[in-house]
């Protein structure tokens, strides 16, 4: 795709940014329009978005995008003026147009992509417009010469008696002038200010009807000089030539007065009017990383400061050094907080993309859904925002597909035909809590239990022991789907387990509550940021590791004698349950078990997805906030480690990926499931 001349890559970035905003706005608003067809503000907003897109895309040279936006604008204009009523087919056509617009927008990212065809979308939109826009009539050139008729003659004579001079003026416009009619109107307007228009060709009436091409002739009576008139007309754009002839007698061409001096601006700088700045997110990420480094360095320097203070005690310079150090420490902390807050974004960014999806799914499923969003202004770190979309989509799909009943079923159950899904977000301490609540048929714990037994999720006796709440939460288990038939949106038993896995690997949690017949509520809890995490530092064979606090159940001493071996795997009893153990040194191959020293060990019990494992380490160190650094470039796929961080003294710690450690342990345990069960009874007898 070729861009217009003079469009730099920076221009394009700016255009794309704004276009994306407008597209998103259209997406939300068009869906809203279906329900709020009587809302004039909404209508104006949609119209403006299409209008802005039309203008800017023409400016960058994306003609097809501009044309499509124009077709959309025409429909919107008629809706706005009440000539068209909002109907599902209009919404469909607008949304279809919008989809094509997104394709057109994508072409800017990948210039080699096949150009999207706008013909169908434009045709669909144009078919809705009741009367096609009348193109400005370009009539044949008025080749005739202006001759004043009798009525004009009378007026001319009267004007001359008043001391006015009659001028015959011929104005020709540039060939590329857009609206010669409006330009002619400008000419009439200007001349009326200094005199009387006796007659014109075409007439004012004809001009308003657009009957003009590039030549405009006027007979005007004025007390001003020809030069004055010329100067006046020179002020109008797109005029190619001005010919002014005195109609009767000559008047002396007085030199026009010099133009008024430029009203000088009194040395004022450009005052910033806009109070916001747009910044590329990658710059924010870099800033965040650098502040992270700064925090680490501050900790290092503070530690050095303490060491110096211990060595030289009351030394004046050291004391002064300590003072300015604590000052710097304070500033760095504030800076860190500020940078964190810059990275906060309202969840609206994700939420706003959902109404369209809900509408599409509901329409496909022939269900009626009222979708309510609350708390979209709730802010979280952008690292979290990016992780929210997929889980939300899965949960909403689940609610529409499995929760909300078909309209007739709802009616016979005494519910309103349209189901309600309420998506809300709020802060709770250092977490963001998002709930998806529907008033559908709910999840029946009995069915879940039956399904779980049929699908051999666990031993039948275990499943029957579960409370209703626990049973309902089995829907996050992979391989469990309660939909009686598989649809193309959900029902394949994948989805909710993915939600759980993803959320938990981020240090969050997800749960479900349900009242059969009344509805289901999904609750999703996530930390506000993933860039800084609180963690417990542990050490084993001289290596320091960090375990995220979010996954820790408890930590404490572990005597070697408490370790039992079942089928070659180490386990221990923890609160009456058998707990598989993982020795960190072994997992990472730092030492082998035959060469182990020390009897006193520590155990950190960690949980993931309902499973628990005891991580065996030598020492528990301290709890600390860590700035997470990605290791992707170095170690690739996660193998028990999610990242690294640097401590105040410069030592590197590895941050453990509890999820993958536990998954590894469970796969091993499942292979030996029966054996463990029998050993459980043996252990409890003992």
């Amino acid at each position, binding site marked *: 795709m070729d861009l217009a001349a*003079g469009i730099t890559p920076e*221009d394009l970035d*700016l*255009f794309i*940014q*704004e*276009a994306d905003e407008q597209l998103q706005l259209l997406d939300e608003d068009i869906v809203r329009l279906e329900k709020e067809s009587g809302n004039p503000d909404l209508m*104006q*907003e949609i*119209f*403006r978005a299409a*209008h*802005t897109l*039309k*203008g*800017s895309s*023409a*400016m*960058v040279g994306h003609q097809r995008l*501009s044309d499509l936006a*124009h077709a959309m604008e025409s429909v919107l204009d008629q809706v706005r003026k009440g000539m068209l009523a909002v109907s599902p087919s209009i919404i469909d056509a607008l949304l279809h147009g919008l989809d094509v617009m997104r394709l057109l927008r994508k072409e800017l990212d990948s210039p080699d992509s096949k150009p999207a065809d706008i013909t169908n979308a434009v045709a669909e939109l144009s078919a809705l417009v009741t009367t096609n*826009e009348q193109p*400005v009539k370009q009539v044949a050139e008025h080749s005739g010469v202006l001759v004043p008729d009798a009525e004009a003659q009378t007026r001319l004579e009267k004007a001359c008696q008043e001391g006015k001079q009659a001028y015959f003026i011929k104005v020709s416009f540039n060939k590329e002038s*857009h*609206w010669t*009619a*409006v330009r002619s*109107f*400008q000419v009439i*307007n200007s001349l009326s200010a200094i005199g009387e228009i006796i007659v014109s060709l075409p007439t004012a009436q004809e001009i*308003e009807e*657009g009957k003009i091409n590039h030549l405009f002739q006027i007979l005007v009576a004025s007390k001003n000089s020809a030069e004055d008139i010329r100067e006046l007309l*020179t*002020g*109008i*754009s*797109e005029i190619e030539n001005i010919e002014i002839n005195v109609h009767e007698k000559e008047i002396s061409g007085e030199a026009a007065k010099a*133009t*008024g001096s*430029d*009203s000088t*601006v009194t040395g*004022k700088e*450009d*005052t910033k*009017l*806009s109070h916001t700045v747009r910044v590329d997110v990658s710059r924010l990420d870099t800033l965040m990383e650098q502040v992270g480094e700064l925090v680490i360095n501050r900790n290092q320097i503070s530690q050095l400061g303490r060491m110096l203070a211990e060595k030289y005690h009351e030394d004046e310079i050291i004391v002064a050094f300590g003072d300015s150090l604590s000052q710097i420490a304070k500033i760095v902390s504030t800076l860190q907080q500020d940078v964190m807050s810059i990275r906060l974004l309202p969840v609206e960014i994700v939420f706003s993309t959902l109404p369209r999806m809900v509408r599409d799914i509901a329409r496909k499923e022939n269900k009626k859904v009222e979708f309510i969003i609350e708390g979209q202004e709730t802010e979280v770190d952008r690292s979290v925002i990016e992780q929210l979309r997929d889980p939300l989509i899965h949960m909403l799909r689940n609610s529409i597909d499995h929760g909300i009943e078909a309209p007739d079923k709802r009616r016979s159950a005494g519910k309103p035909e349209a189901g309600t899904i309420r998506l809300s977000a709020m802060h709770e301490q250092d977490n963001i809590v998002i709930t998806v609540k529907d008033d559908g048929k709910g999840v029946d714990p009995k069915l879940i239990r039956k399904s779980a037994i049929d699908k051999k999720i666990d031993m039948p006796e275990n499943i029957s022991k579960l409370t209703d709440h626990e049973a309902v939460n089995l829907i996050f288990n992979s391989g469990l789907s309660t939909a009686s038939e598989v649809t193309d949106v959900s029902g394949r038993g994948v989805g909710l387990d993915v939600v759980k896995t993803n959320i938990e690997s981020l240090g969050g949690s997800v749960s479900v509550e349900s009242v059969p017949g009344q509805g289901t509520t999904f609750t999703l809890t996530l930390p506000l940021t993933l860039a800084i995490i609180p963690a417990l530092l542990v050490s084993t064979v001289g290596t320091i590791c960090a375990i995220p606090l979010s996954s820790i159940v408890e930590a404490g001493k572990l005597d070697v004698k408490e370790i039992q071996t079942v089928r070659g795997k180490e386990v221990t009893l923890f609160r009456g349950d058998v707990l598989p153990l993982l020795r960190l040194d072994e997992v990472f191959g730092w030492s082998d078990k035959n060469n182990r020293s020390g009897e006193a060990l520590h155990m950190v019990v960690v949980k993931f997805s309902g499973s628990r494992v005891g991580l065996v380490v030598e020492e528990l160190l301290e709890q600390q906030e860590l700035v997470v650094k990605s290791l992707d470039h170095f170690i690739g796929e996660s193998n028990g480690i999610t990242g690294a961080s640097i401590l105040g003294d410069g030592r590197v710690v590895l941050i453990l990926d509890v999820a993958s450690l536990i998954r590894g342990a469970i796969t091993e345990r499942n292979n030996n499931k029966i054996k463990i069960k029998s050993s459980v009874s043996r252990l409890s007898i003992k």
Partner: protein
Amino acid sequence: MATVMVVDDAMFMRKKCAQVLSQNGYAVVEAASGAEALTAYQQEKPDCVLLDITMPDMDGIEALKELLKVDPNAKVSMCSAMGQQGIVIEALKLGAKDFVVKPFDVARVIGSVKKLIG
């Protein structure tokens, strides 16, 4: 240096227009709405104004009326899209001095500004 105020809610249009103007030696004041334009006009006293028609809250026509109340001699050129002839004529009747049709080319914008400032 003459100062031009660019009023447009569409960010890309406004920036691009401002860029073209400053490349041609004008000082540029940007305003993203009619209300901003009014405040800025009184603060910055620009020599002329490029005023977009389609804007939220206060559209170009309203903004024009208000600007002319503040300064009856304000030199305003309307920026309009295809299909807005009627509104442009209305603006001219109200006292706008000129208009530019989008999508603009550089020469046309500069031309209009030169005509306005003289």
